[in-house]
């Protein structure tokens, strides 16, 4: 990669190419498991957020605690 350096190799000295085989297990797990699970999780949180939006938040004055030793 000494000549005609491109991409990140042009930016940072001393980089070596990564053996694609070493990344295979990571990439497979990301595409087959992690990313679909992340999308599912984000969707689930979106639904939970939607349900929580209309819950009331107000402490009536009669319920306000007196200052206590903390």
């Amino acid at each position, binding site marked *: 990669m000494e000549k005609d350096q491109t991409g*990140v190799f042009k930016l940072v000295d001393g*980089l070596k190419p990564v053996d694609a085989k070493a990344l295979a297990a990571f990439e497979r797990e990301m595409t087959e498991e992690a990313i679909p699970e992340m999308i599912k999780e984000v969707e689930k949180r979106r639904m939970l957020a939607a349900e929580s939006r209309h819950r009331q*938040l*107000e402490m009536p004055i009669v319920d306000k605690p007196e200052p206590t030793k*903390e």
Partner: protein
Amino acid sequence: MYTWMPITSTADLAKLVQHISPEYAPAAVAKRLENGLSEAVKAILIERNYIDKDYRSTYYNFYVKKGRRYRADCVRIHFFDGTVSFDDKVLALSSNDQRLTDHYYGFMVLRPTGIATIGRSVVTPDVRRGASRFIITADHKVHLLGHKLTIRGFPSMDQHIDISVCAHATCWSILRHYSERYNAYSEFLTHDITLMAQQFDPGGLVPSRGLALSHAERVFQEADTYPIIVARDIKNPGDLSFYRQLTAYVDSGFPLFAAMHNKGHAMAVVGYEWRAPLNTALPGMRYSWDEVKTLAVVDDNHLPYLSIPVDGGTYSAKDIDAFIVPLPEKVFYPADAFDKLVPKLFKLGTVIQLPPQNETIIRYFITTGSAFRTFVRNRQSEFDPKLLEAIMKLPFAQFIWIVEFATEAQWAVNQISARAVIDATASLTESYPFWIFHGREEALIFGRESVDLNLQTGMGVLNMAAMGHTGFTRMDTNLRPTQSK
């Protein structure tokens, strides 16, 4: 107009009643201070006829319309240590070292409303009894008797009860922190916030008659932040992902609007404290949430920086069932993703040396690219020069996620083994959302100049020289460490 009140013990705070008119409820204020302030406060300066912009916003729009007469002015009380003196002849404050700000602990405005009189306040966590170790703070300027003072803290106030409720007070605290901390955000007064919660001006007392999470979300949208609601899965009591996200955002320096629907209450989460390191390693991978002992909250029923435990008692983090994080615009990669992403990162252990997964403590948070570069520059001897060069040269987006990997032993001494720098603008569907992933011997560097990542030219590995340390320093620069006095 000014009264100097030396404090030899917290019991002296009760003397506020002798100096402040009853409409400011000095007895209730004194009781609150007595319960929460440390003995380091040795004097109070009482400033009468103070014009407070937040109270005036409610005065002009509400109190002045009432049949009962309310005063237009407030009282402001200032807290000092024992080295400051006051000359009432010339109305001058002085300290031996001429550095008055170093001896100033903050202020509290008292409103002439009879009840819930504590208005705009900024007090340092250093004099709050039991304050947590790390608190989100900003510098607030204070003009007093010709002195320009600075106090570092988080703003707080009581709800007005009649026109604003706890949720308004919490929105106000967070937005005032934003306007003081970041130039990009405008300042909003108390009355502005009660209006921002609604689509139209409902008039009268309506703003305080019930407020839902959606109203608070609307306030943050109107204030030009990009709020995200994260709700706990009520059907899943062990929803740890919710708390991991909560910790991640607080650790990023974003105060949270936290809702406790079972109590009908809201408050701001503004900090945390780690528990003491364990002597024996627990089995299994852990997250920073597992190491949290207390959360610091700004709750309008208490003085600011109340520490609440993670679990147990009548008031704990387990009461929080939803929160809003008012994010800046360019954070697209959601915290939701990390529970799924992090275990997969250990698959890169074939390229980067990582601690065994079941012995690792994971911490993740957002910071800016420039804050990360500053952190690295200040500790450059820890980094191989080639890695340092990469950190300085890579064209980071404004915001980055940092994922830190630490063993139990490293965690105990604020060190880490490895760090992933993730593009906060990355898409959820990217397999490689990284800028950098480095351990102590190798670093993966990623180019993000093309949407079509070429594994041969778009990423590379650096083999690094040993830098003679047992771990990198943990990056904990987003929050201020409390120095209890």
